[in-house]
């Protein structure tokens, strides 16, 4: 005879674990912290080596020089470079991060840019490694990296910011996690180099971001006027109906970055 078993929702006594509520509380913590941030901008490219971090850092500094409150979240957890690009050690980035009851202080970079990065937290030269079983770590590592991203959003004392730039690693997975964690999908700033190979990779990443609700601010073409030939920025702009925000030469000047910052409003 079949047992008469009720459904999950039929059992209404208090659930002490309240796992769904715990996840909800994590999301509220992110939303509460981001409530003081006017614009979250994901700097993305499907391609590695196009200069996302370089563009992110210099754009952040230009925004800072123009009087905006700016933070940079280094979401490249396995290859973090933002503190060095922001000259954060000179601003206290190398020392321990002061931790308060509800948040950790961001490091201070050049031109008043705040930042958080695994580079500030890991031992020199060491990779990001997690405690856990050695076998089949691919099963849980992604969840842990998403948790680190969540804590970088929610547990850093960002304060009131005009822009929080999120420097993403190559690929689209980290963008998907970011869009999932934020109350609303972030805007996307696309970085490419002129080559058709870069355009191919960026196209896929941009499409994935748009499918997750991102608003594309436009394309930044980096390393223009050097050995890389092509029209990736123009091609992508035409295909997606978005502007080319800047063409960054091999030797950009502060005016180059100021121009890009001005296009962001």
């Amino acid at each position, binding site marked *: 005879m079949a047992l008469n*078993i009720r459904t999950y929702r039929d059992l209404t006594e208090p659930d002490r674990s309240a796992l769904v509520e715990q996840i909800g509380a994590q999301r509220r913590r992110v939303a509460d912290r981001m409530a003081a941030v006017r614009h979250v901008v994901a700097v993305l490219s499907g391609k590695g080596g196009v200069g996302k971090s370089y563009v992110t850092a210099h754009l952040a500094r230009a925004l800072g020089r123009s009087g905006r409150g700016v933070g940079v979240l280094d979401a490249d957890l396995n290859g973090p470079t933002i503190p060095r690009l922001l000259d954060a050690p000179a601003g206290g980035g190398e020392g321990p991060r002061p931790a308060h009851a509800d948040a950790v202080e961001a490091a201070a970079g050049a031109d008043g840019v705040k930042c958080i990065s695994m580079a500030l937290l890991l031992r020199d030269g060491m990779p990001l490694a997690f405690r856990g079983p050695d076998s089949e770590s691919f099963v849980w590592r992604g969840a842990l990296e998403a948790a680190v991203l969540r804590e970088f959003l929610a547990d850093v004392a960002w304060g009131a910011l005009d822009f929080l730039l999120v420097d993403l690693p190559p690929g689209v997975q980290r963008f998907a996690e970011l869009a999932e964690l934020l109350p609303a999908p972030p805007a996307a700033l696309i970085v490419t180099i002129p080559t058709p190979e870069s355009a191919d990779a960026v196209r896929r990443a941009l499409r994935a971001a748009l499918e997750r609700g991102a608003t594309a601010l436009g394309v930044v073409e980096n390393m223009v006027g050097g050995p890389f030939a092509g029209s990736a920025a123009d091609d992508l702009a035409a295909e997606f109906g978005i502007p080319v925000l800047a063409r960054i030469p091999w030797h950009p000047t502060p005016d180059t970055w100021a121009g890009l910052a001005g296009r962001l409003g």
Partner: protein
Amino acid sequence: MKFLCINCDRQMVFEERQLPGDGTLAAAFRCPECGRCVAILTNPMETQLVASLGVKIGGRTVPAQPMETVRGMVVTGKDNAFVEDGKRETGNGPMWTAEAQERLARVPGFVRGMVKRIYGDYARDHGIAEITPTVMDAARSELGLEGM
């Protein structure tokens, strides 16, 4: 995840959580009607997945600490990556016995400050003036600090 005592048709209630070793997470549930107790045992992979989500089986007993996952799960972090807010360590805070301090010193530096603060808050909340290894054991069990 809920457990139903089929004989009594009653929802079982969470009893306690343990980490008995080998990466196993044990969560025990008891039927409020007949008292029957069952435990679910997760394998190391399942335990790791739960930890990766930053949730606590049996519920949270202390508020979420900033960078809890970073501090609790990263094994390649700097010992001096964080310095805790000193304000909460002053005043009429609990004393630490030498044995308790020795045990605290064995906690990795990356997470030590946060763990010390949690033990201190636990002692204050329970009116405990002196933190001993026994108090630390009680806090670990009660607060779900097995992984720290």
